[in-house]
């Protein structure tokens, strides 16, 4: 790939944020070059300025956010000097973009075919009939099953992966020289993500486009990147070829990011002595019925089908599977946020699957949950102290005692005691997740269920929280059920893993076995789809 002349180069770009923003410049003196036929990955944690750089190239910066310095040179001209009309002509034709959220990036009221046709219309190309035909061709090219039908569909009738393919079809319609992809796979589950990455890679090679790929996931970088640029606080801290950056990161920040990535290699399960099970689940079923009235049929989803599990004292069981496979449903049945249709959930010998009212309230303390969203899981109008103390108080602990316990727990999860008097919004995501953990511990449970407890966190913070959990588990002798779609995370923390697919557990076993010797075909696809896995395996030898 010896190409000398960049198709696009960003020179000393600085983008100012409006007054009152969290910092003065979204992008600060950034220089980058993008060559034809390469995939340049921009990585960095949330808020580091990745999207802003991309938007600036398209001339699609939000109101009040404007470039104050630098140039974006594309084919000998500075894009920042272009008028809106000139930019309009370039957009879609020379520069195309796809976005993170396939759910919202398509107009919900327009048929897919019309939305693709618009690209031609915008540049006054082809007749309406030809445009429709081209739309179907493009859809075929991006590998949508039954493209003719998909063309007539509305976005909501397509799955997330399919929508992202539509977005790509749209971006490729006029064979642009540059494709900017802003986290196009973040919202997709692993298997779909793998497919989309492959698609982008294929198309890029076929057409020799330049692709600027924005992501925060180093797995994805490993999978797809030719070159990498790492951003932090609006600055580029490191650039280089993918191999160079991944294998030999120069900048401390890059090193930190890479170090925080959970390793896939699950540790050889420590040969523990068999402990008695604390939680036994047998033949659990849960079916959702939604909608439906006098005349219309309800939508029926069999979310949990005949699930049986055992959890030993002190053990961590991972439940993995793609989105919609029923992981959360199982978790919610276990803690009785939901009543299962059938089956038993024995917690220390007592079946709590069908308890009601006061009895249920009484046993609740023994099984607690840590939630996914650190923002939604804390009442914004309650102080941290109260949030933690409320549980014990509901179980009859005196107020003083409960607050004392809260203070101890805060210390335990690594927060200052003074946190008790503050409100959730004064904390970062990672800190909040610690509060959530403290709250779960406040009732001194035997079992904790963590549903995607780290999915919403940046990698580096993810690592901290995972460490904390592992540590606490050890110290308090907790049994943990860890629900996640991220196999890397599962590999890092779990003793045993259960793989779910369409409501059923297709395979259970020690983590090491699952990753290295998957028995089930589905488990294998799941593991194959993990981004960056090959590279890692290669590195591991």
């Amino acid at each position, binding site marked *: 790939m010896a190409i000398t002349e960049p198709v696009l180069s960003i020179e000393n770009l600085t983008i100012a944020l409006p007054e009152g923003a969290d910092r003065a410049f979204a992008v600060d003196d950034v220089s980058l070059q993008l060559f034809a036929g390469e995939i340049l990955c921009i990585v960095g944690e949330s808020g580091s300025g990745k999207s802003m750089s991309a938007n600036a190239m398209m001339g699609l910066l939000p109101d009040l956010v404007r470039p104050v310095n630098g140039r974006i040179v594309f084919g000998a001209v500075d894009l920042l000097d272009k008028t809106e009309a000139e930019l309009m002509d370039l957009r879609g034709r020379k520069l195309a973009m796809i976005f993170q959220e396939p759910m919202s990036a398509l107009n919900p009221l327009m048929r897919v075919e019309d939305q693709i046709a618009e690209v031609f219309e915008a540049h006054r190309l082809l007749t309406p009939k030809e445009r429709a035909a081209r739309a179907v061709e493009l859809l075929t090219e991006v590998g949508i099953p039954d493209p003719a039908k998909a063309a007539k569909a509305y976005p909501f009738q397509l799955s997330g992966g399919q929508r992202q393919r539509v977005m790509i079809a749209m971006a490729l319609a006029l064979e642009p020289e540059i494709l900017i992809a802003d986290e196009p796979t973040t919202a997709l589950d692993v298997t779909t993500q793998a497919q989309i990455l492959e698609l982008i890679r294929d198309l890029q090679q076929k057409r020799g486009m330049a692709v600027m790929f924005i992501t925060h996931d180093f797995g994805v970088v490993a999978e797809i990147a030719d070159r990498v640029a790492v951003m932090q606080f609006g600055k580029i801290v490191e650039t280089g070829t993918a191999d160079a950056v991944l294998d030999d990161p120069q900048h401390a920040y890059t090193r930190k990011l890479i170090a925080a990535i959970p390793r896939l290699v699950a540790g050889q399960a420590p040969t523990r002595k068999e402990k008695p099970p604390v939680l036994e689940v047998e033949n659990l079923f849960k079916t959702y019925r939604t909608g439906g009235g006098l005349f219309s049929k309800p939508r029926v989803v069999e979310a949990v089908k005949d699930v049986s599990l055992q959890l030993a004292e002190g053990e961590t069981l991972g439940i993995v599977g793609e989105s919609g496979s029923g992981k959360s449903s199982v978790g919610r049945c276990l*803690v009785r*946020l939901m009543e299962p249709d059938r089956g038993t959930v024995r917690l220390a010998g007592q079946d709590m699957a069908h308890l009601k009212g006061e009895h249920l*309230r*009484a046993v*609740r*303390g023994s*099984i*607690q*949950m840590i*939630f*996914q*969203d650190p923002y*939604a*899981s*804390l*009442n*914004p*109008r*309650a102080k941290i102290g109260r*949030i933690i103390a*409320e*549980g014990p108080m*509901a*179980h009859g602990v005196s107020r003083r005692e409960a607050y004392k316990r809260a203070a101890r727990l805060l210390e335990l999860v690594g927060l200052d005691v003074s946190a008790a008097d503050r409100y959730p919004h004064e904390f970062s995501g990672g800190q909040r997740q610690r509060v*959530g953990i403290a*709250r*779960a511990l*406040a*009732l001194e449970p035997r079992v904790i269920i963590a549903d995607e407890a780290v999915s919403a966190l940046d990698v580096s913070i993810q690592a901290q929280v995972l460490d904390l959990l592992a540590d606490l588990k050890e110290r308090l002798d907790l049994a943990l059920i860890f629900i996640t779609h991220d196999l890397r995370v599962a590999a890092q923390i779990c003793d045993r893993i259960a793989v779910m697919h369409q409501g059923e557990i297709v395979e259970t076993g020690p983590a090491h076995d699952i990753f290295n010797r998957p028995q089930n075909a589905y488990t294998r696809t799941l593991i194959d789809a993990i981004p960056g896995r090959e590279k890692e395996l290669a590195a591991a030898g």
Partner: protein
Amino acid sequence: MSDFWKRFSRNRGAVIGVVILAVVVLVAVLAPVLFPQSPWRMVQRPFLPPLSMDQYPLGTDALGRDVLAGLAYGAQVSLLIGVVSTAAALLVGIPIGALAGYFGGVADDVLMRFTEFFQTVPSFALAIVLVAIFEPNIQSIIAAIAIVSWPPVARLVRGEVLSLRSREYVEAAILSGQTSATIIWRQVLPNTLSPIIVLASLMVATAILLESSLSFLGLGDPNLMSWGYMIGAARTVIRQAWWLSFFPGVAILLTVLALNLIGEGLNDALNPSLARRGR
């Protein structure tokens, strides 16, 4: 809190609204001091035009009563009815909405059908009927306004509760063994407060308009000098005395405008993420 004030005071309209409302409140409170005599008192010859006598700058009405005094006392009535009827509507709407949203299922169905039912009856017509039937007095007017204005509250609260209900912190509270009552009271309702406050400020405005409309139709409390009453009474003499309907109309306009501006300001300040909705 200070953050709230900063955002609120950045909104120019809201500040104007606060100023106007403050004046109205002040006038209402000070009415008995400014005009020690009853606004019903016939003080001068009828139909004295504005500015023709220093003592009665806004003139007199058909019976020679001081229009300015009437406006001052009218402010009392409007604000009182606006605030009390809104409070009453909230007292009905919040529990209904909260129960429907929190418990869902059959309770939700029943309560929402009930709410829908009240929304199907044309509300102004219903208010008229209610007031006429229970005879126009301040209680029946307040009750009627409350009865026609609680459904939006119930819907709003239900919607909020419905979305809060599945918030993780509510689920955490369920898991920690708190009772439903505690959860609704401590976890859910406090978080519906901002939209309720915004809605309430707009409801006060609507209630004032409703009261004045009722009074205009002759369905006001005959013992209270209200702005709507003044306009209604002046309607038949609008040709010879435009000022009798003009000034109270302006008073209503300004007060309602102020409340709307404040409502918008509150909305922007309390729910920065919630987009403005024209209500």
